[in-house]
């Protein structure tokens, strides 16, 4: 019997239940067609919005918080931009929406992005995810860059690098969940989860 749900990487909804609040954006797929600027507008909006909460929290416990507000804002912008770009690029069912929810959690900001993907791309994509979630991040990043240079035609390599930079450069954890779509065997629903830490002590970051 085929697995109904598969997860990769760090995918846990437990942290979401402890979130103080969340912001949900839902875009028709067409929001971005020919309007690439909407990606940056959305990413920048999220970064500005959540920076205000982070800034006031960090004022109360500056040593606990891992980043200066500007630095944190910059990482939110990068992570959100990358997740939205990927969702737009790979969203297969153009009639469906792309959902983006950002949770202000305990010690972390958690992004959830949902989009449809083509079922026949799943195996290769899952191989990529296995690849980038096992091993030393430093080495994975550099070897991915070297591979990209050698295989300049490959587009999936590009996404691999984006995901690796989220983890390596910005310290976020990533996870993915694949679900079937009722009545549409050619599609899967992909949920990507990115957890960007806000505080220094690792025990405060729920896993």
């Amino acid at each position, binding site marked *: 019997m085929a697995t109904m749900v598969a997860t990769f990487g760090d995918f846990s909804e437990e942290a979401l239940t402890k979130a103080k609040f969340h912001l949900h954006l839902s875009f028709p797929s067409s929001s971005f067609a020919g309007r*690439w600027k909407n990606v940056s507008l959305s990413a920048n909006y999220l970064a500005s919005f959540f920076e205000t909460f982070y800034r006031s929290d960090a004022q109360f416990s500056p040593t606990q918080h891992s980043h200066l507000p500007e630095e944190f804002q910059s990482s939110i912008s990068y992570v959100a*931009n990358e997740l939205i770009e990927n969702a737009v690029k790979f969203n297969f069912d153009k009639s469906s929406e792309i959902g983006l929810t950002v949770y202000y959690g305990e010690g972390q900001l958690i992004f959830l992005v949902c989009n449809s993907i083509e079922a026949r791309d799943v195996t290769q994509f899952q191989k990529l995810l296995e690849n980038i979630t096992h091993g030393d991040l430093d080495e994975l990043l550099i070897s991915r*860059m070297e591979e990209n240079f050698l295989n300049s035609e490959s587009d999936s390599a*590009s996404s691999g690098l984006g995901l690796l*930079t989220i983890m*390596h450069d910005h310290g976020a954890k990533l996870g993915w969940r694949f679900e079937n779509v009722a009545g549409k065997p050619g599609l899967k629903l992909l949920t990507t989860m990115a957890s960007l830490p806000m505080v220094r002590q690792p025990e405060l970051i729920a896993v």
Partner: protein
Amino acid sequence: MLEIKNDGYQVWNDEVSETVFCAGSFRFNGVNEYQPIIDLFNSVASKSAQKLALDLSKLEFLNSSGINALSRFIISLRSRPQLQVTMKGSKKIAWQSKSLPNLVRLLPSLQLEYLD
């Protein structure tokens, strides 16, 4: 063409300082859309006997396709070992001290300097 300027981003070569400047936000859709910028870099690199300086200190944002394009360009410079390559960044732009050091690992002779 030694200058690319558009809404939100600029790339230009300054012959006096022998530096290629990148400023604004680079968010092109896919690595192929970075080709005109990479072509500009290559054009400057091929005309220089000894050095190439890239000033990214005013580059506020670079998406992963840009990191991909930049890393490929840096790797391609291995075939020009006579070129002394310098990259200038800014500590005030948070992504730079996170992402630019990775490029030094691709080309150990690359000099990475932060202007502030």
